[in-house]
Structures are given as structure tokens and as C-alpha cells.
């Protein structure tokens, strides 16, 4: 293959996925752009944004990959029930990791801002926001990932190629929207 043929093939195959994730990212951006009041009120909230978004992708992307592998190996049935131990364990591990890492991110962010002498909201406010956002987004992304992987598999699609794009497009939107909701709840309860 010549350079031109390689480049044309790579371009053609990648453009649809990139365009889809750009659209998802823009919606996440619109929510972030509408959060300016909260970002101003809670110093240090913006520091958490990249870490929380990456955590969503890392944790729930891996949940999708695990479920995909388990389906391929025939260890899991693609039916929705609450008594499949393997699915329950994978979901519980993902939720625990997602919530814990969000809380740790908030603690590290407050420590970093303190060391750098930059303004920061109280530790309890940022940790409460991060844990709440981690929990709500975790539940929503688990539902999204399990549904898409199971329904896709039943329709004969490869769950390995489905999980990645689903998590990258929904993860950012869900991640930022739940951060906004969690911030409003914590502020309404008297944090700040």
C-alpha cells in the first residue's frame, strides 16, 4: 500500500467515530459552559473535571470490556436479572472503584491546591460533591453499558467494539451533568 492509500483508509475508517464523539463532547461542553456560576462559587471544582471524566472512561470502559469477554466465553447470559453473580460482582467492583477514586481525586485536589497556595472550597464540600457525582454517574453509566452490551450481543453485534464508543460518548455528558447536579445538591444542603 502506498502512503496515500494507507492515509485514505485510516481517514475513512476513523472519521465517523471521531465525529460521533465530537458531538458528545460538545454537549458535555455546553453543560460545563452553563456551570459557570457553580464553578465560580466552588473554588477547585474545575480541577476535578478532567480527573472525574477520565475515571468514568477508565472504570466503565473496563466494565464493558469485562462483560464483553464474559459474554464471548459464555460465562454470562445476556439477560437482565439480579441473580447473576458474575455480572453483580463486576458491577459492584466498578461502582466501588468509581466512587472511591472520585473521592480520592477530591482529597488530592484539595491537598494540591493547598500546597500551591491556591483558593479551594472546604475538603468536605469537594469530597461530598465528588462522591455524590461518582455514585449517580456510576449508576447511570452501569445501566447504559450493561444495556448496550447485552442488547448489542443479542442482536449479533460484537460487544468489544460497542462498549468503547458508548462509554466515550455518554461518559463525558453523564460525567459533567451529574457533577452539576451533585454540586447543586451539596450547595443546597449548605456546603460551599
Amino acid at each position: 500500500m502506498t502512503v496515500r492509500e494507507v492515509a485514505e483508509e485510516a481517514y475513512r475508517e476513523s472519521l465517523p467515530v471521531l465525529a460521533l464523539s465530537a458531538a458528545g463532547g460538545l454537549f458535555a461542553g455546553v453543560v460545563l459552559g452553563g456551570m459557570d456560576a457553580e464553578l465560580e462559587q466552588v473554588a477547585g471544582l474545575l480541577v476535578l473535571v478532567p480527573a472525574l471524566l477520565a475515571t468514568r472512561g477508565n472504570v466503565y470502559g473496563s466494565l464493558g470490556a469485562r462483560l464483553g469477554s464474559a459474554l464471548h466465553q459464555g460465562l454470562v447470559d445476556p439477560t437482565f436479572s439480579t441473580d447473576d453473580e458474575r455480572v453483580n460482582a463486576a458491577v459492584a467492583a466498578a461502582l466501588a472503584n468509581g466512587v472511591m477514586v472520585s473521592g480520592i481525586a477530591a482529597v488530592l485536589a484539595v491537598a494540591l491546591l493547598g500546597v500551591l497556595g491556591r483558593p479551594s472550597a472546604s475538603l468536605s464540600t469537594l469530597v461530598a460533591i465528588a462522591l455524590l457525582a461518582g455514585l449517580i454517574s456510576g449508576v447511570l453509566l452501569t445501566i447504559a453499558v450493561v444495556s448496550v452490551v447485552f442488547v448489542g450481543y443479542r442482536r449479533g453485534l460484537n460487544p468489544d467494539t460497542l462498549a468503547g464508543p458508548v462509554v466515550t460518548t455518554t461518559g463525558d455528558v453523564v460525567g459533567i451533568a451529574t457533577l452539576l447536579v451533585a454540586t447543586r445538591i451539596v450547595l443546597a444542603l449548605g456546603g460551599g
Partner: protein
Amino acid sequence: MLPVLIVLTAIELGSGIVLDTFESTLLRYPTLLVLVPVTIGMAGNLGSILAARFSTALHLGLLSFSTEDDRLVGNAVATIALAVTVFPLVGAGAWLLQFLLGGTRLALSTVVAVALLSGVVLAALAVAVTTITTYAAYRFELDPDDVVIPVVTNVCDVLGVLVLFGAVRVLV
């Protein structure tokens, strides 16, 4: 999995601190705030698509690390071309959405220029980071499928914020 997640989180907090240092600019021009998630995401995506293609080519024995290698150069060219196609649209989209929702203080051309400059620089960096990481995995006999994508996505996330910061400093 938890220790890996904590290390990745610490790296991402670095880009959060960079965002925090130009928070006042971002709050004055919310259109730039709209660009933040999409720039981070696209940088990671450009890197991970390239990484997946390099890994597969390496497994099939089709890739050699030389500027004479058609597959290496072709994929690098495609990455730059994809950035040049998608980023101006992302900039225009961000401007339009912010314009419809609450008005914008920046000119359309400024936002498109910030997005395009960020995109081209990020694409070049994504090519460099992916090529170096894939080469390192190959030299140390690690499976590129396991190593390259996590490294490239998280490094590109951080670079996404840094490059956006630079483009805003130069153009706004």
C-alpha cells in the same frame, strides 16, 4: 485495578490544575469552557485510534519504525488530516451552541482558530506520543494492546488541556 486508577487520577489532576490557572479566562468566555471536554476527548481519541492501528499492524508484522514505512507515515498523515477536518467543525459547533444558549463574546473566527490550532498541535503530539510508546512497548517486548492505549489516552488528555491553554494564550 485501584492503584492504576489512582495513578491515572493523579496525572489527570495535573491537567485540572492547569485548567484552574486560566479559570478566570474560561469564565469570562464560556465558549472556551465548551471547548474543554471536546478538546480533551478528541486528543485521547486521535491517540487511541492511532495506537490501535499501530498495535494491530505490529502484531501482523506490517510495521517498521522508519520514516520510509508507508504504513507509519500514512497513519500519521491521516491523523493530521482528521484533526484538520474535525477541529474547525468543533470550534464552529461550540461557538454556535453558546451563541444560541446565552450569547458569546468571542468572534466565530477566534473560536475556530483556537480549535484548529489546538487540533493540529494535538494531532502532531498524538503521533509523536503514540509512535514512541508503541516503539517502547515493542523494544521491551510488552503487548502494545495492553500498554499503549491507556498511556496514550491519559497523556493525550493532559496534553489536550495544555495545548488548549497555549492556543488561548496566543489567540484570545
